């Protein structure tokens, strides 16, 4: 047993020396390899954490939302719809919801205005998200000015800044009293942005949605299941973020594999020839090449995954920030809860470590089975 271990250790000794002899080439290879794994792992950690967090917090989102559309666009919905929709069997309650957007031309930022169902702020006061507080340097007691729909100035006193821990939901929110919102946004009395429904039995979502459309053909119901599936789709494999990065990584691996599979350098062939000439078996050469492939790919995998983890969860995915930010001025400085999917990690391992190790062994096997004399010539 100890003899077998000692043999492996000697082969690893030789493999590491061999890698160190071509320090520059192998160092560059390891760096690029680690970078590819780092980017893949970062995307994997980021998208999984966002999807899990969305699934956990949005499970409390409205059960059914009813919008009104005209020529494919949202329109304010008449509050009178509440009565007829509320009478549909299975609907516990229906209530109008008021919310909308405001573009702050001074700070070039978009805000989301929301009128809470309960505990609305006092007249003339607002609650603001931590992102708005940061961008506008506004805190409790400060006055913020906005321009209303009719061009008139509105001033609101900040009642409170919403908790930092909810920034992934509320960074751009402004909570406002209903009367203030109607005066500010111009949405007429008798209309709301959309309707929110509570339903007795989740299995009836689709049936109720169909009944709503039958009753009011100009409406579009959105059920909670669709909301919950949204973030899976948004950050799924079809998303631009994942496709572009994974596509680039696959191409990089194809280049690696191509380089390895199309043959060894003359120096490597000479090395194999000498080893065979001094008595190494073909199996010893293959073992050495296995350790060589594993040394590079496993080190790159471990280093890349560790760096990816630190990037996403310790620096709030700082390298992705410019991409995700786009043209947004208001960007939530979110720290994601480190949800890890071990199955994803195992998949990444098999896609990064195994192919490289295999493509390292195959051409060496060809070289190792040829007569040493002809390989060295």
């Amino acid at each position: 047993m100890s003899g077998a271990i000692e043999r492996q250790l000697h082969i690893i000794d030789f493999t590491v020396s061999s890698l160190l002899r071509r320090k520059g080439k192998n160092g560059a290879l390891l760096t690029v390899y680690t970078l590819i794994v780092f980017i893949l792992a970062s995307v994997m950690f980021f998208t999984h954490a966002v999807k899990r967090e969305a699934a956990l917090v949005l499970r409390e989102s409205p059960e059914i939302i009813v919008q009104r559309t005209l020529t494919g666009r949202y329109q304010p919905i008449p509050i009178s719809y509440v009565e007829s929709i509320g009478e549909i069997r299975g609907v516990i309650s229906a209530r109008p919801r008021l919310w909308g957007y405001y573009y702050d031309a001074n700070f070039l930022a978009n805000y989301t205005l929301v009128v809470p169902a309960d505990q609305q702020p006092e007249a003339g006061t607002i609650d603001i998200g931590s992102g708005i507080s940061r961008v506008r340097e506004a805190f409790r007691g400060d006055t913020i000015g906005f321009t209303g729909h009719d061009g008139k100035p509105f001033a609101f006193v900040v009642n409170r800044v919403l908790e930092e821990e909810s920034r992934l939901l509320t960074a751009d929110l402004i909570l406002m009293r209903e009367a203030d919102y109607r005066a500010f946004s111009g949405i007429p009395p008798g209309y709301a942005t959309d309707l929110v429904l509570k339903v007795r039995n989740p299995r009836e979502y689709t049936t109720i949605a169909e009944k709503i459309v039958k009753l009011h053909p100009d409406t579009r119901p959105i059920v909670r299941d669709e909301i919950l599936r949204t973030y899976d789709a948004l950050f799924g494999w079809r998303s631009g973020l994942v496709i572009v990065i994974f596509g680039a990584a696959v191409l990089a691996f194809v280049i690696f594999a191509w380089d390895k599979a199309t043959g060894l350098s003359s120096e490597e062939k000479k090395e194999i020839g000498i080893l065979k000439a001094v008595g190494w078996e073909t199996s010893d050469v293959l073992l050495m090449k296995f350790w060589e492939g594993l040394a590079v790919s496993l080190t790159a995998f471990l280093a890349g995954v560790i760096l990816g983890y630190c990037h996403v969860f310790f620096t709030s995915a700082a390298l992705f920030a410019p991409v995700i930010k786009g043209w947004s001025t208001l960007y939530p400085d979110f720290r994601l809860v480190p949800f890890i999917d071990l199955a994803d990690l195992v998949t990444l391992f098999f896609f990064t470590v195994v192919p490289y190790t295999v493509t390292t062994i195959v051409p060496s096997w060809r070289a190792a089975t040829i007569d040493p004399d002809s390989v060295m010539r």
Partner: protein
Amino acid sequence: MAPRNSALYLGGTAGLLALLAGLLTGSGLAVADARDELSRNARLVRELELTDLCIFTEAAYTRHPAVTDLATAFQDAPASFEHFPSGALVGPPAHLTGNHVGSH
């Protein structure tokens, strides 16, 4: 005596493995710690009737993809292409690609 190359390699790999194991264990603990925070955020979603995470604030349809209409992201003019960077980053929301109730 200088350490053997195999000892250096195996030691380094073991160190990296231990670091990764530590991070994964730490992530489990962090998730457990965040349970209360996530519950509070879920309660906030219920109270404010929220539908989306605040990730992309540049366009309405990427700020609230869960309730975006069926004409996005080509809504600004006939034949106008998607032009917000975040719109190109994310995949289409479920209700835009699957079967949905209504024709709007």
